[in-house]
C-alpha cells in the first residue's frame, strides 16, 4: 500500500514549523506520531501535498509540573505518559485513560497532542481533556493562545486549529485534595476505539459531593461533558443511588450514533452503566489524598 505522492520536510523548531505551515497553508499536514494520519495516507483517504514532520522537535516532548498545572508537551509519546511517575502522582486520570489508547506498540509512537488534534470521536484523550478542564496551547504566526476543550473540539474529526496553527502544549490544572478520578471504557476488544468511554472527577467534602465532572467519548461528534448531571451531583450525598440517578440522567441526554459496532440505544445503556461505575470509583478514590 502506498500513500499518494507528497513532499516531506522535517523542521527542527516550532518557529520553523510555523513558517513552513504558513508557506504551505492548507496543502500542508502536520505529522506527529502518525498512528492515525499514516493509515489515512496509506488508504489514500488523505492526500496532503506536503507533510511537515515535527518528530524532530525534541523541545515539544516533556512532562513537568509547574505551579498549579501539569504541563505536557504536544509531542510527548503516549508511552512516556503511561510510564511517568509524575503523571501517576499528579494526574492519575491521564495515566489511567492512556492505557486504553491502542496498544503499547502504538503508544511508543502516538503522541498526546496528535490524539487531541486528530479529534477522533471515540478517542480517550479528548474526554480526559474535557473532564480535567485542560488548556490547549496553540501557536500560530500571530502568537500563542490557550483554548478550553469546549473551544478546541469543534465536531467530528474537527478542531479549532487552523492550517497555520500548531498545538504545542496541554496544561492540566492540578486537582485539589480529596479529589478522586476514574476512567472506564467498553470496547469490542482492548485497544480498539471505545464504544463508550467515561472520565469522572469527584471532589468530596466529608460525605458530600463538593464537585463532580463527567465526560464521555464515543457518544457524539466529540467529547461530551454532562453539565446537567454535574450540577445535580454538586452538594448531594455520595451514595450509590445519587450516582446511579446522575449517570442515568447524563446518558439519557446523549445523542449517540448507531453503527456496525453498536446501536445508539446500546451506547446509551452502556454510557449509563459506565458513568455510574466511573463516579463511584472516583468517589472511592477521593477518600484520602488527591488521587
Amino acid at each position, binding site marked *: *500500500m*502506498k*500513500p*499518494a*505522492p*507528497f*513532499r*516531506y*520536510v*522535517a*523542521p527542527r523548531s516550532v518557529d*520553523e514549523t510555523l*513558517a*513552513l505551515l504558513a*508557506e*504551505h497553508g492548507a496543502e500542508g499536514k502536520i505529522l506527529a506520531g*502518525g*498512528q492515525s494520519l*499514516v*493509515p489515512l*495516507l*496509506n*488508504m489514500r483517504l488523505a492526500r496532503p501535498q*506536503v*507533510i511537515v*514532520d515535527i*518528530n524532530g522537535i525534541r523541545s515539544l516532548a516533556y512532562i513537568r509540573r509547574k505551579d498549579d498545572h501539569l504541563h505536557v508537551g504536544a509531542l510527548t509519546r503516549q*508511552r512516556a505518559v503511561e510510564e511517568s511517575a509524575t503523571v501517576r502522582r499528579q494526574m492519575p486520570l491521564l495515566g489511567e485513560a492512556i492505557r486504553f489508547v*491502542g*496498544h*503499547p*506498540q*502504538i503508544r*511508543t*509512537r502516538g503522541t498526546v497532542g496528535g490524539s487531541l488534534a486528530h479529534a477522533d470521536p471515540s478517542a480517550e484523550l479528548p474526554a480526559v481533556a474535557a473532564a480535567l478542564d485542560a488548556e490547549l496551547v496553540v501557536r500560530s504566526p500571530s502568537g500563542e493562545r490557550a483554548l478550553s476543550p469546549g473551544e478546541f473540539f469543534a465536531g467530528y474529526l474537527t478542531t479549532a486549529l487552523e492550517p497555520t496553527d500548531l498545538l504545542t502544549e496541554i496544561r492540566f490544572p492540578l486537582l485539589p485534595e480529596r479529589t478522586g478520578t476514574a476512567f472506564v471504557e467498553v470496547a469490542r476488544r*482492548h*485497544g480498539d476505539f471505545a464504544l463508550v468511554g467515561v472520565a469522572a472527577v469527584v471532589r468530596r467534602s466529608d460525605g458530600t459531593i463538593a464537585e463532580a465532572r463527567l465526560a464521555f467519548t464515543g457518544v457524539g461528534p466529540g467529547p461530551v461533558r454532562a453539565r446537567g448531571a454535574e450540577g445535580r451531583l454538586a452538594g448531594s450525598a455520595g451514595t450509590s443511588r445519587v450516582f446511579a440517578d446522575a449517570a442515568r440522567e447524563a446518558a439519557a441526554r446523549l445523542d449517540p450514533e448507531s453503527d456496525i459496532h453498536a446501536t445508539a440505544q446500546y451506547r446509551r445503556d452502556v454510557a449509563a452503566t459506565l458513568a455510574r461505575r466511573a463516579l463511584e470509583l472516583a468517589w472511592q478514590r477521593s477518600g484520602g489524598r488527591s488521587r
Partner: protein
Amino acid sequence: MSSDRVRATPARVPARRKRRLREPQSTMTIQFMVNGETVERTVEVRKTLADFLREDLGLTGTHLGCEHGVCGACTVLLNGEPVRSCLLFAVQAAGAAIETVESLAPGDALHPVQTAFREHHGLQCGFCTPGFLMSAVALLRDHTVPTDEQILETLGGHLCRCTGYQGIVEAVRAAARTWQR
C-alpha cells in the same frame, strides 16, 4: 548503536543555506543502522519503513498484514522500542537503530525466544510471528520476569489467526525463564 545519529539530508541538493526555509523533498538520502549495520540509501519519502526494509534491503522477514497499524505483523524495534513499520516512513528512521526479526538468529542457532515459540506451539503458519517475536524480545529485555498482565498487554497488540494465542503466551513465559540475559 545510536551513536551514529545522522540527520536526514535532502538528495541532490547542495549544502543548505542558512536562514532559508527548508524545502520539502520527494526523495531523500538517509542513513541509519539496521541490525547493527550502517545503511545509506536514497528513498522516496512516501515509502514506509516496512516497504523499505522488504524491497530496498531485501529483509522480507518483516511481514505486512493490514498496513494500517492493526495486525502487528510488521512490528520492528526503533531504538529498542516496538513500533509499526507500516506507520512510519523510512525517512523518519534517519539516524535511528532498527532491529528486525533477521537480527535475532544471525547464525544457525535460534534466539531463545524463537526456540520457545517453536517448543510451545507459538506459531503455525508463521505469518504474524516476526511481529510477535520483536514485541516479545522488547518486553523481555525490559522485564526479565514479566507479569502475565504485561505479557498479555504486549501480545494484545498483535493478531494471530492460527494459534488461539495460548501457545504464544506460554512461549513468552517460557522464554523469560530460558533466555540468559
